[in-house]
């Protein structure tokens, strides 16, 4: 029997600490690099957000202003418009991407002949370089472009895609085209993890297709839907190049998203302090949205199983 404070016990403790120390030695290079290129820059960004610092007025230098940059942004119409635009693009894209991705996953999961070739076609947009895809869609969205030609043929009429509403819609169309495959991949993996015997049993019990989907598939897929929602919400709230390339924030600055607003503050007005402050607030918005998604879906999951 090992007694507290006995030599065996002490030896075991020493060995444990030696093992942990060796482990940290293995991790040291990665930790050092992470501190240098990730943690230090982020801390520096927070520090910058508390200072007045403009690259076009370097003679003024940096000086401490506390939360003044945040206060300025919260009283700036451009900030609220960017927040609204990001929220609109995120909500609209999710509402389209997720159902289509789910529908396609259900269709592909039947493994009909030729499903592999369809899967390859459907995955293609995800493999292209996003910036190039954005330029590609800028070409398709031209006033005399192919998209407007089809809209004309369908008697809907040509749309001026460089207006505010249509500009935001074009960003949504692009991100839906580009990212529906992501929902498809994750949800298809989810469907394939469902035991077919459960569905067969429900079939025998007389549950029709819709009920099998609603009461068996959907609850079992909850974790996968949550993954898609969380990752896509994070990515959409941080959306930059789609908007930057497709609309350039125009007309004027009316379709700017949060990330674009940071870029404008930083590289058009050279206002480092305010740019940093917005980027920190953007981070807070992303974390907040993620937490809300986690909590609501977790809570609902708990209620259902209870």
């Amino acid at each position, binding site marked *: 029997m090992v007694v507290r404070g006995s030599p065996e016990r002490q030896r075991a403790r020493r060995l444990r600490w030696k*093992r*942990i120390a*060796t*482990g*940290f*030695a*293995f*991790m040291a*290079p*990665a*930790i050092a*690099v*992470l501190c240098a*290129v*990730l943690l230090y*820059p*982020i801390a520096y*960004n927070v520090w*910058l957000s508390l200072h007045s610092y403009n690259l076009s007025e370097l003679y003024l230098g940096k000086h401490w202003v506390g939360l003044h940059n945040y206060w300025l942004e919260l009283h700036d119409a451009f900030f609220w418009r960017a927040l609204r635009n990001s929220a609109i693009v995120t909500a609209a894209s999710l509402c389209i991407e997720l159902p289509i991705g789910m*529908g396609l996953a259900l269709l*592909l999961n039947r493994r*009909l002949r030729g499903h592999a070739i*369809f899967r*390859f*076609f*459907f*995955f*293609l*947009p995800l*493999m*292209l*370089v*996003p*910036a*190039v895809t954005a*330029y*590609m*869609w800028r*070409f398709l969205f031209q006033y*005399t*472009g192919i998209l407007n*030609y089809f809209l004309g043929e369908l008697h809907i009429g040509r749309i001026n895609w460089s207006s505010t509403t249509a500009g935001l819609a074009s960003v949504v169309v692009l991100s839906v085209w580009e990212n529906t495959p992501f929902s498809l991949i994750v949800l*298809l*993996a989810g469907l394939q993890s469902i035991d077919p015997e459960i569905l067969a049993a429900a079939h025998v019990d007389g549950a029709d297709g819709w009920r099998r989907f609603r009461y068996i598939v959907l609850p079992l897929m909850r974790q996968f839907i949550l993954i898609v929602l969380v*990752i896509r919400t*994070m990515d959409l709230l*941080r959306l*930059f*190049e789609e908007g930057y390339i497709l609309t350039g924030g125009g007309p004027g600055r009316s379709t700017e998203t*949060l*990330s674009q607003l940071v*870029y404008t503050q*930083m*590289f058009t007005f050279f206002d480092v302090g305010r*740019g*940093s402050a917005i*980027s920190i607030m*953007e*981070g807070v918005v*992303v974390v907040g949205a993620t937490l809300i998604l986690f909590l609501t879906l977790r809570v609902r999951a708990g209620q259902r199983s209870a």
Partner: protein
Amino acid sequence: MTRAKRHAATSTIYTLLMIYAVWTLFPIVWVVLSSFKTNAQALSVPPKFFFTPTTANYPDVFHTISGFSGVIVNSVVIAAAGTAAIIVLSVPAAYGLSRMVTIGRNALGFGIMSARTFPTIGLAIPLFLLMQDAHLLDTRVSVIAANVAFSLPFGIWMIYGFVEAVPRELEEAAALDGCTRIGTLLRIVLPQLLPGIGATAILTAIVAWREYLFPLVLTTRNARTLPVVAGSFITDFGTDWSGLCAYAVMTMLPVAIFGAFVSKYLARGFVSGAVKG
């Protein structure tokens, strides 16, 4: 289900799949077609579906984008060097975390989540200023550092998952035989990790290859990568749409061919990365 009913269901499914396939493929097909047109034909009204193709746009890409071959080299070097750095740092870190450090694992998981949440642009601002101070703006090193910052947490987490899947008995036997920790990692664990390392490397290389914001902010001329030079076709004198299409096809082709081979891997990687991240 009766035979006729099943037949109807099958054809409905195929119709739906075809509709989505047209929606997904048509933009790509149209860009490929337009890359063989003259610029005047690219946006002609009504659009030309049949025309005499020209291949002039492809060599012209090298004129429009100054130093295009250098840009390709930059993209390849930046993706490869960043990936190599991430793998070399991740493997020992993941091994140490999995086998020796029994404390602080949740903290790492939290760190990964927050690293994924932090907006890229919020990392680009301080990196731009720090690189400026270090006189590293417009160098490959600056873009590689930014990519490593963004992908290293993900790399560690992914490889950690693969290390956890390696059975520990062999390592214990090796330790009894007097093998050091590093020896065990290199001789016993590493060979079993190779498929996992391959998957991680492919994913991080793709992320670096696609990255737009970091090279946009950190480079001006010498270290530009493929995604940021696309803007060269849009000038104050007008836009060379057919040239842009040719450029787009040139960037699509390698990725699509590559993707055809690794799409299964990719799917698994996306999902496992997603589930764990």
